[in-house]
């Protein structure tokens, strides 16, 4: 899976250079690409704010449309309440007109009945893109980098999320700010489920504070972050444009607070 980060990186770099003498925030607009290989699923994340609405039919461009509704790019949206997916196919307006016998349809996602879908995929949310076509699809996301304080609420069970900022670094780092629920006995810890597009499988890791990791893995000097079953520390740094699940095992919710400012 290839990603083009140049645009965002260039925008961020330009911003940093231009503001070295003064400390202030400014809007940073950029884009990133996520390639979905033929016949594969990729767990994408929205890390840019397009228009404060961020409809799934608006935020992605470059998807594959098939007038006969066979090989269209399909989005699998996670419904937190039901803990289930909903899936919709992407059509260009012309293909939607053709397939659903419509007139003047817009580019975007449609359900099987031909209803145009405007469900949001907000900044910090994730979804699967499935590419049934025989050629790779490159989805492009355009928007503004979310600066300031970004709060992502993680309720009990599974939340499909992404870092709210287009940076690939350890989500337990100070920059990302994820501090989850930890249990010294390894029972009630938050679990990150990361989708590996190459093998089309999940990897899962538990969150521990350093002291809890020391206790659980009979170790010393551990730090906050994600660990595998054997106690190996995992640098959990999803690529730009990727999402992941957080499984909050215990009842109630917690908030992932990220503070990010381009100076």
């Amino acid at each position, binding site marked *: 899976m290839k990603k083009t980060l140049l645009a965002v990186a260039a925008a961020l770099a330009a911003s940093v250079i231009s503001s070295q003498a003064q400390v202030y925030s400014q809007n940073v607009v950029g884009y990133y690409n996520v390639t979905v290989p033929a*016949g594969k*699923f990729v*767990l994408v994340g929205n890390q840019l704010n397009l228009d404060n609405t961020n409809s799934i039919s608006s935020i992605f461009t470059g998807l594959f449309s098939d007038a*006969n*509704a*066979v090989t*269209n790019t*399909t989005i*699998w949206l996670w419904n937190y309440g039901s803990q289930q*997916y909903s*899936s919709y*196919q992407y059509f260009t307006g012309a293909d939607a007109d*053709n*397939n*659903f*016998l419509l007139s003047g349809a817009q580019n975007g996602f449609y359900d*099987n*009945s*031909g209803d145009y879908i405007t469900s949001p995929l907000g900044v910090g949310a994730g979804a*699967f893109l*499935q590419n*049934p076509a025989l050629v790779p699809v490159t989805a492009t996301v355009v928007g503004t980098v979310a600066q300031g304080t970004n709060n992502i609420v993680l309720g009990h069970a*599974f939340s499909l999320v992404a870092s709210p900022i287009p940076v690939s670094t350890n989500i337990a780092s100070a920059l990302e700010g994820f501090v989850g629920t930890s249990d010294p006995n*390894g*029972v009630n810890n938050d*679990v990150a*489920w990361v*989708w*590996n597009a190459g*093998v089309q*499988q*999940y*990897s*899962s*890791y538990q969150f521990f504070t350093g002291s809890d990791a020391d206790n*659980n*893995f*009979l*170790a010393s000097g551990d730090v906050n972050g994600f660990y*595998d*079953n*054997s*106690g*190996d520390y*995992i640098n959990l740094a999803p690529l730009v444009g990727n999402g992941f*699940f957080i*499984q909050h*095992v215990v009842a109630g919710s917690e908030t992932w607070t990220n503070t990010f400012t381009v100076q």
Partner: protein
Amino acid sequence: MKKTLLAIAAVAMVAVSSFAQGNILIGDNSRGIWNITSGTPLLNSGLTWALIAGPASTAIPVAGIMASVPTNNAAAYSSATAWTDITQNGFFVVDGTNGLATAGAVSANGSISYNNSTAFQASNLTGGTQYTMYLIAYTGAFGSGTVGWSAGFQYTPGTGINTPNGGNSMNASGLTPFGVGTVAATPEPTTIALAGLGGLALLGLRRKK
């Protein structure tokens, strides 16, 4: 309204075919597998584990010996008998990432982590089908040496983009800590008394000579 129902059906078939695989994620928490002592259990890195599966909601075939082997103070049991039972009643060793039977080393802290904590398709499991599973660990080669086992638990391999077993780890599903090794049975008082009588009798015979 729908122009081509066939096309939609074709899409559905594509989706179904991509969801036909059964994926499992093997792992066990630290302190999950111990060797047995009569006192404090000791972690042992010299053990190998394997995952066994069988029909859903079925007692594991070694339950006749013990439902699971405790981590200490276990009653003496016969590993030879256990090896005979382990794959009885429709139970089998789950295939690993390479298509061969699962096997791996137990970590020094008593945990196991397989395939870098990444799920995989076990070729002899079916996605969406529930199984009774249990974990064994043993010294030496599979089928010989000392063996111990966990309690049985229910596990449903995942399909497609669904998390294996609904996101419930093997520990969360009932995989229990267990020990490997037999403790010499403590002789009962009557046994000790008989041994003492036998010894005295031998002394008596020697004096007569």
